[in-house]
């Protein structure tokens, strides 16, 4: 549906070059809620604007619905843009117009007749839950309500893609949650493909099925939601995940551990999907007479899947501890041995759920 091929974007400013995007390759399939995460300045905003050609690539191709955007005439490009909705961090509503007028603008541009506009806008305002605010002005609305107006406006022309440019970054966590649920509903009900850029990992966790991580103008990692959370490769990705999934042993506990004792071993276990629902650890400990001491535990829900983090101290003979370790490895549990407070990644982290 959307394909970015070898995209480069260079901005020229006062005779110096700024490379905003480097060799971007990305494919977004129909029905995806695709999330692009990165710190500010990573090039996300430039990237999302490639899709509706608000920014044009210096090199490379943008393909939307089998159309190469560089080949489109200005008229054809405008027609395509009507099929691509966009919402913004700061909503970009007309302050001088009511909610109803704001939402009807895309239809006015098309010369739609008044009755059709009235029916369509009433339906949209009902859908986003703002029917009672039709005659209000934007400055009378909360941030969440403004974004709902933005969403209704973006949907007015029945687009097949919705671009979300940091759509929840100006909202409080609770409002963010309700806007994300609305986006999910739009994806399901209207079968609209959604591309989201954000710097908030919880946005990715809540609604995205595919994720790309951007850093310094490049996509450094890409995969399904579970792939990324389960087995992040890049440090930046790990840092982002750490903002919402805590798997660090609190320092207070770490200081009490004796790493030189051969009869003790500290393991960080990662359970995913099925494994998270089985009593693997207690089974192993029972089988090899090892005493587990749970130091830290955390469970994260990833849209129906479960990601569990567990840090345990195993107490027993060195041989039995090793057997337990091996048993857990066989069961596809992600394991890190904690030594001297450092996590030593020494295992098959490739556990499939």
């Amino acid at each position, binding site marked *: 549906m959307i394909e970015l091929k070898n995209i480069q974007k260079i901005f020229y400013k006062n005779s110096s070059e700024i490379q905003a995007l480097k060799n971007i390759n990305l494919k977004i399939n129909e029905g995806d809620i695709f999330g692009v995460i990165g710190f500010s300045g990573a090039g996300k905003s430039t990237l999302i604007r490639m899709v*509706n050609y*608000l920014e044009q690539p210096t090199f490379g191709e943008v393909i939307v619905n089998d159309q190469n955007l560089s080949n489109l005439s200005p008229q054809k*490009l*405008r*027609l*395509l*843009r*009507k099929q*691509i909705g*966009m919402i*913004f961090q*700061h*909503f*970009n*509503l*007309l*302050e*001088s*117009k009511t909610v109803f007028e704001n939402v009807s*603008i*895309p239809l*006015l*541009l098309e010369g739609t007749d008044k009755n059709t506009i009235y029916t369509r806008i009433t339906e949209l305002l009902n859908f986003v839950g703002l029917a009672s605010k039709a005659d209000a*002005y934007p400055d009378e609305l909360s941030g969440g309500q403004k974004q709902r107006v933005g969403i209704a406006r973006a949907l007015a*022309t029945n687009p097949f893609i919705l*671009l979300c440019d940091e759509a929840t970054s100006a909202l409080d966590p609770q409002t963010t949650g309700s806007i994300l649920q609305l986006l999910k509903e739009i994806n399901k009900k209207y079968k609209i493909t959604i591309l989201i850029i954000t710097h908030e990992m919880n946005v990715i966790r809540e609604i995205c099925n595919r994720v790309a991580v951007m850093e310094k103008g490049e996509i450094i990692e890409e995969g399904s939601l579970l792939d990324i959370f389960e087995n992040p490769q890049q440090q930046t990705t790990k840092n982002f995940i750490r903002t919402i999934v805590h798997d660090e042993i609190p320092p207070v506990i770490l200081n009490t551990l004796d790493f030189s004792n051969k009869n003790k071993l500290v393991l960080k276990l990662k359970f995913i999907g099925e494994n998270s629902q089985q009593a693997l650890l207690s089974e192993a400990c029972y089988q090899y007479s090892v005493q587990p001491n749970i130091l830290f535990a955390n469970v994260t829900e990833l849209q129906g899947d479960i990601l569990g983090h567990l840090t345990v101290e195993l107490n027993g003979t060195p041989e039995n501890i090793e057997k337990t370790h091996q048993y857990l490895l066989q069961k596809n549990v992600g394991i890190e041995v904690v030594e001297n407070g450092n996590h030593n990644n020494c295992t098959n982290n490739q556990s499939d759920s």
Partner: protein
Amino acid sequence: MATITTAQIIKAILETLQMVSISLLLGALGGIPLGVLLVLTKAGGIRKNTFMFRSLNNLVNIVRSLPFIILLVAIVPFTKLIVGTSIGTKAAIVPLIIYIIPFIARLVENSLLEVNQGIIEAAQAMGATTIQIIRYFLLPEALGSIILSLTTATIGLIGATAMAGTIGGGGIGDIAISYGYQRFNTEVIVFTVFILIIFVQCIQNFGNHLAQKARRH
């Protein structure tokens, strides 16, 4: 009043109103599009055109540098060509329009630049044409501010009409100068200035009121 009659005052008020309203109307018709063009062709505008922007920008600056009294005299042949005479109220209106167009253009440019760039981006993302962006986004969002700009321009015009007396344009300002200032008649000066104050107050209040309404529609 010792030296001027009520009929003279009424005539002068009507002359001022005539000069101000006609030159404001025609000045706005010229100045608003010029202001829009300046914003569109500016670096970062949606129809960037450096040559056009520089030309218009310089033209606006040059005309605005001319003191009105100089402009008034300098374009006498042009005025004669347009209205067939170089004296009287009609003749004063031509230089007033030339004077006010770049002034309005500059004020409108500033008003339009205040419009949130994000709104223009949203318009482009909706597939709006340049004309639609001006009609549905730029002008409605800037309307309140443009009305205040026109109010400022109107008051500027009242000031300029005082000098229209030089070519027999008449008006309140002319009475203030020729009957009051030049004949050392303090009473006339005070009286005419009082009328001008009422004019300016009314226009400013009316402008503020309209601008307030425009921000909500």
